[in-house]
């Protein structure tokens, strides 16, 4: 699971409607894997990211490369786009847990795949 996907996932336990994003990563095993850089794709993704959540998540993982706020010239800032590429598309979570900051529900990541399924009584 790449960090970009973590940025897209939210707790969906019934009744858990506030403070349920981003899920808190715990006990994660990370792996870097090279991917082809595509600036146009990254530009298209900029307004789809929850940037603040991404930075906060990265800091907890000791990934300190991203600026605290998105640069105003992000679209044309090659250095920034390269860092972003490395963080969201080349950083993989092989295993770990995602904990909802609100209801504390734990979602497991195994074999690089997040399990977002809930038991029937939680739906």
């Amino acid at each position, binding site marked *: 699971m790449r960090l*970009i*996907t973590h*940025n897209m996932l*939210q707790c969906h336990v019934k009744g858990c409607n506030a403070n349920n994003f981003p899920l808190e990563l715990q006990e994660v095993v990370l792996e870097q894997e090279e991917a082809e850089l595509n600036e146009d*794709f990254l530009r*298209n993704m900029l307004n789809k990211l929850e940037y603040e959540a991404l930075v906060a998540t990265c800091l907890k993982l000791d990934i300190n490369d991203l600026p605290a706020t998105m640069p105003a010239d992000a679209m044309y800032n090659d250095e920034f786009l390269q860092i972003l590429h490395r963080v969201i598309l080349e950083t993989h979570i092989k295993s770990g847990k995602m904990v909802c900051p609100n209801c504390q529900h734990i979602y497991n990541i195994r074999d690089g795949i*997040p*399990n977002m*399924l809930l038991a029937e009584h939680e739906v």
Partner: protein
Amino acid sequence: MLPTPDLSHLKKKDYEHIYEPAEDTFLFLDAFEDEVPFLKELKPTISLEIGSGSGCVTAFVGKIIGESNCLKYCTDINPRAARATFGTARQNQLSVDVVETHLVDALLPRLENQIDLLYFNPPYVLTPSEEVGSHSVEAAWAGGIDGREVIDEFLPFVKRLLSAKGAFYMVVVNENKPDDIREIMAQDGFSSSVVKTRLAGREKLFILKFTRV
């Protein structure tokens, strides 16, 4: 003719737990091959396959839309299918982001109106309702009454997921009442067309395509 994805890493034993590509899968591939000009024009930034199973369709579509210019999401309720999709993407030199979930649970609201390309080969087979809801290979086919129970659960999500330019493709059979499905989607503001049909044994298969009016 575009090549069928390499599935050589999946063995007979795997297909006890995940759906083995069959006529419906291959018709879906043929439909996407017909849609190549449209897909190239669409240039999706984010795609999403629901119930990706072996990963065959996403690997095929991924080759059409390209590797680095699109974030390709797949979901499956069956953990073995999720892993098979992941493996098939690897086998075919593609990056696919797989989430083990029911339909799109946990991906909304973040992916609200962000999906440019959405596709689903749903469990369309007519079965007793009790057979719906499995997390095993039955999830790939058991569709309940009229084969519509999972389809009908999913249809309301389409208008939430698709971007303004987005397109949704779905496999159905005659017993699912394609015209009724198209009518429901028309009420949600979608125009529809039949991209492909084929008679496969007793099944009359359709590939439906929906775009915003």
